[in-house]
């Protein structure tokens, strides 16, 4: 294949992002601390540019390039747009926080953007190697970000844990991929699917590979029993970085799972379905039950994430287009909610003061009823109470689950949602019913974007149709020819 045949258009956003990050990296070397706003602004501008590029290259059909190693389909397009928004919002929320803690620097911007690049490659990978490359780029950037506050022992410990366990999971994933290669003779997702469906593959080897791959995926999603890193990393990382980890990477992980399991290993569905049921139920159970015992909000959100990932897996495991689009909707809504939750913690933290326990938000309603109200929206949305967006996310998944006849699974899911409602209610209780502690919580900076983000939960709760239709359409188009 010559250079002239190479169609670079589908990968344009990634290429543009890479160039822009390199420019920011170099430019930042010539700026002193007072002028970091330039690179900060450039980072946001880059995200806007990427969004424009993705929008302009968005086709209603899948498009392959780089000899089938890279794919641009509507699923990837929509998810990428959501990721740009999530990362941009993260940067905006963290500005003051990072300034106060001295990491408002080039490393923060470039590592964040590199992690975004990794996610984008993951989302668009159509080959196990590309997938792995994207995953590692994301993970390495995140390891460094968690340890960004060099003098924080907690952050360093979290980064070490994250790194060691992450490397282990990557190893499992690679091992599984190598077995799949042995079974099917290819790393190309489409070829693997064809070989498995055609019966030419070594079934035993492929199943062994599947087990390792599901374990690796479960680790990246943070599903029980591969969840151990989640609370420690969420808790140990600076809140601004937790905000990043809890946002866009979840979207990437979702597509990652869909690409491998639905597009590559669909012929083995009856095998991975059972595994996902166990992962989903355990995640919902352990996540929700353990979250009740947490007094640290970051840890509580970490366990709540685990339970949300369990719910998300329900949508994937039904394996129908309805289920997948419901899961996609869920992932996007989850990221919106998580951004509000951590965004408020970031907004309430000041120099030398971290807002992270239940006590820190005591009586918030008295001092800042608007922030308290936004947190209330996020909490009720996570609990799945209408008319907030989280309800439709859960509802769409329940509907898909009942549709394939798994009513018992739906009942388990709602029972654990009920248990989960308790700790979300407790947050609302602490803000509204309790009297403030000695130090009344004060917000730093302005929070227009945060308000828009929180109100989006309400707006999407009253009018969820548009986003839901986009998810359904994107899934339909992405799966049409494959």
């Amino acid at each position, binding site marked *: 294949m010559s250079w002239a045949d190479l169609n670079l258009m589908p990968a344009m956003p990634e290429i543009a992002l890479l160039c822009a990050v390199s420019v920011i990296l170099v430019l930042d070397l010539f700026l002193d601390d007072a002028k970091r706003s330039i690179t900060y602004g450039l980072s946001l501008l880059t995200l806007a540019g990427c969004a424009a590029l993705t929008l302009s290259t968005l086709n209603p059909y899948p498009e392959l390039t780089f000899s089938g190693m890279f794919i641009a389909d509507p699923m990837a397009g929509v998810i990428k747009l959501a990721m740009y928004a999530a990362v941009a919002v993260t940067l905006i929320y963290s500005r003051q926080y990072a300034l106060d803690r001295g990491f408002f620097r080039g490393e923060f911007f470039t590592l964040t953007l590199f992690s975004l690049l990794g996610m984008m490659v993951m989302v668009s990978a159509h080959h196990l190697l590309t997938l792995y490359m994207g995953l590692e780029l994301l993970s390495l950037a995140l390891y460094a970000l968690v340890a960004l506050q060099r003098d924080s022992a907690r952050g360093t410990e979290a980064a070490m844990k994250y790194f060691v366990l992450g490397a282990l999971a990557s190893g499992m994933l690679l091992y599984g991929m190598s077995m799949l290669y042995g079974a099917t003779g290819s790393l190309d997702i489409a070829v693997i699917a064809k070989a498995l469906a055609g019966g030419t593959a070594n079934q035993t080897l492929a199943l062994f590979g599947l087990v390792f791959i599901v374990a690796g995926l479960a680790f990246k999603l943070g599903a029980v029993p591969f969840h151990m890193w989640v609370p420690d990393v969420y808790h140990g990382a600076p809140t601004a970085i937790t905000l990043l980890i809890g946002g866009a990477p979840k979207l990437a992980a979702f597509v990652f799972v869909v690409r491998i399991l639905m597009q590559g290993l669909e012929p083995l569905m009856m095998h991975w379905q059972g595994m996902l049921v166990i992962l989903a139920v355990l995640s919902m159970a352990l996540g929700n039950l353990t979250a009740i015992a947490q007094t640290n909000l970051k840890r509580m959100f970490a366990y709540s994430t685990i339970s949300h990932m369990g719910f998300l897996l329900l949508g994937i495991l039904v394996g129908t287009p309805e289920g997948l689009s419901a899961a996609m909707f869920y992932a996007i809504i989850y990221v919106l909610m998580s951004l509000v939750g951590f965004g408020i913690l970031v907004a309430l933290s000041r120099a030398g003061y971290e807002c992270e326990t239940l006590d820190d938000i005591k009586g918030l309603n008295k001092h800042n009823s608007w922030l308290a109200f936004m947190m209330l929206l996020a909490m009720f949305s996570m609990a799945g*109470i*209408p008319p907030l967006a989280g309800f439709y996310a859960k509802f769409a998944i329940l509907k898909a689950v*009942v549709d394939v006849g798994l009513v018992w699974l739906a009942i388990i899911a709602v029972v654990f949602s009920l248990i989960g409602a*308790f700790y979300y209610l407790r947050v609302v*209780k602490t803000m509204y019913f309790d009297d403030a502690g000695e130090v009344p919580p004060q917000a730093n900076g302005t929070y227009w974007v945060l308000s828009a983000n929180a109100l989006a939960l309400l707006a999407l709760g009253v009018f969820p149709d548009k986003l839901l239709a986009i998810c359904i359409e994107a899934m339909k188009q992405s799966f049409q020819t494959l």
Partner: protein
Amino acid sequence: MVENLLSLAIWTPIVAGLLVLATGGDKNAGLARIVALVGALAAFLVTVPLFTDFKSLHGGMQFTEFAPWIASLNINYHLGVDGISMLFVVLNSFTTLMVILAGWQVIQTRVAQYMAAFLIMSGLINGAFAALDAVLFYVFFEAMLIPMYLIIGVWGGPRRVYASIKFFLYTLLGSLLMLVAFVYLYFHADKSFEILKFQTLVLPLSVQMLLFFAFFMSFAVKVPMWPVHTWLPDAHVEAPTGGSMVLAAITLKIGAYGFLRFALPILPDASRELAPLMIALSLVAVVYIGLVALVQTDMKKLVAYSSISHMGFVTLGMFMFAGDSLNQWAIEGALVQMVSHGFVSAGMFFCIGVMYDRVHSRNIADYGGVANKMPIFAAFFMLFAMANSGLPATSGFVGEFMVIMGAVQVNFWFAFAAATTLIFGAAYTLWMYKRVVFGDVGNHHVEEMQDVNKREFLVLAVLGVAVLGMGLVPDLFASKMHLSVNDLIAHVAHSKLK
């Protein structure tokens, strides 16, 4: 005639609530009160045409509205009321107006949030009564938990946190199972969430039983039926006066309404099979909870238990099957009882609130001889107490009489057990009244009590007129529901097994 009356009934209070919130902190409390009152009045006035223009001779749903809402899930904004739900929309808007007046001076902290919570909740409740789409119903049904949770938790009594969380989780448990039931029905109704379509489904008995259980969990908790009633005394006691009024007058009715709108017409065979169980639970509520009420020392708790007992009457009336069909007396009696209890319990809770504002105690023992200091108040309190014990010529009598009439036709002993409530009801209500109002002035707190002011008088008078009016001319309400009840009975008599 205005189109979209139901939408107006739903959205007027919600928009008014948001406006109230926009008035800001407590320095603008006066403005917040006025905006809230205007909003509540407007919200009540838009529901009046629902009552006056309702065509009692037309079957089916009236004032219907339809618009696609979430097209991808086939969920529609479909509203409409029949002779049953229309009454509750009006009752609810009326009660909200009373509640705003009741909290006028009493609430001094976070006034705007208080008023807004009630207005928004009022809109959501109207939505639940008017919804003809199951998911739309669910959205309104659940959303009203949020303002109620805040009302109890922020403005409630000492154990408010416990009460509010208990209230929320109890009701959420039931409704989540109902949601699964809705989704199940959706796939059987050709992917539609239309409640009216659910009602035509043919379902095997085993499925009906399971679905009935799901609905039962949801609605029985809301009613509340024995033995899932325990959240109610806690919630009532800790809620502010307005919260108790809305809880008793309206939200309990949503549970009973749910049985009428979902359980009976969608699952007639399961309802018939399980009627003995429902009747047994209702009779336990009527008799046992009546006895429990007798020994309460806290006035609010006493009225709360009396509410459970009266709601037992309602569920009793709803499940009076004679052979295949429901008894018309009983079911209309249940409905009249629901409306009447809305007025009476609101009045009772308001009276207790008036005394609490003066003495800051709900203990019966802390009172005595109130009549000496507050004669006007004592007269009104007497009226509501009489209505609560079912005295003829008050609204309380009509419903109970009709249910007992219906029960006699079905089974004498049901009627006999139910009729004991007239005795217990009179016993606990009047005994409390005697200890609180009559006798010598009990202590210096009572000595200092002032009689009702103009605002309190207005609320008492309006509620009093409603109680007497309904007792003297029950047909004013009953005539609106005849046809809808007959339709329901005819529908339920038709087995869905084949």
